[in-house]
């Protein structure tokens, strides 16, 4: 599986670290909304198809990336820098 880093170009998946579901929305740290925290920690879409994810190019430029990956085919549909907000455009 190849992931195209926006800085480094196409690299083997071994250089990347999965950093979790990109659909999560972290409540404000002071928030006492237990439902929002519960959703942030536990609720996952778990789609069979396109999935918004956060990856880090830990074995390269160390950038955090927004990646859309198809969980069935492992096709990487898009990559971009996560800087400026990690939430990816919802595709699933």
């Amino acid at each position, binding site marked *: 599986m190849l992931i195209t880093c926006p800085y*480094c*170009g196409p690299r*083997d998946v071994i*250089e990347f670290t999965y950093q979790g579901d990109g659909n999560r929305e972290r409540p404000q740290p002071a928030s006492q909304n237990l439902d929002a925290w519960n959703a942030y920690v536990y609720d996952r879409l778990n789609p069979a198809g396109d999935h918004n994810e956060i990856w880090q190019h830990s074995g*390269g*430029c160390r950038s955090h990336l927004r990646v859309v990956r198809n969980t069935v085919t492992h096709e990487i549909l898009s990559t971009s820098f996560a800087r400026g907000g990690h939430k990816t455009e919802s595709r699933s």
Partner: protein
Amino acid sequence: MAEQHLPERQSPLEPEYHPGSHGNFEHGVDVILSETRPGSILQLAAWPGEEKRLIEIIRNVTGLALPDGAGGGVSSGARAAFGFAPGKFTVVDEAEGFAQAFAGAITPAIGTLTDLSHGRTAIRIAGPKAEWVMAKFFAIDFALPAFPLGAGRSTNHHDIFAQIQRSGADQFDIYVFRSFARSFWKALCHASEEVGYEVQ
């Protein structure tokens, strides 16, 4: 100002650094391995939005025409600079204490400078089979059109993080963690045996 007395730096490769020809060199030496031992290895990082100002500072201080763009770099022999991550650059100089040249230029509003001179080891591989040997280590394209002269790349070999700069058509400078340098050097020597290598 009192002259700075810097501690004498010892090579981490020394127990495994054996000058001379090795491996399958009966038909010629196809790669030359050496430790370049630059006096200064600096890491410069810009805050988001300050990248262009930092590039300008590097150009002014080093006198190198550092190109803008991912992995862009330039190598002049005594001095080199290249981008290895967004807004982050490695600057190398033969002389010790080059960090002082940036003092006052990189303000806290622009970014940071970290002196890694004692934390990295610089290894050079040169020769007609340099690309061949490098390709055994790193899953990146070493062909000249994909990896132009002066350009830098960040990658790793079995979790040993490496910054690579092409300093010649058939020459690469590899910057690895000092603590892993001897292990990497031994692996590089083993990988070079089949083509015949000389340690200088």
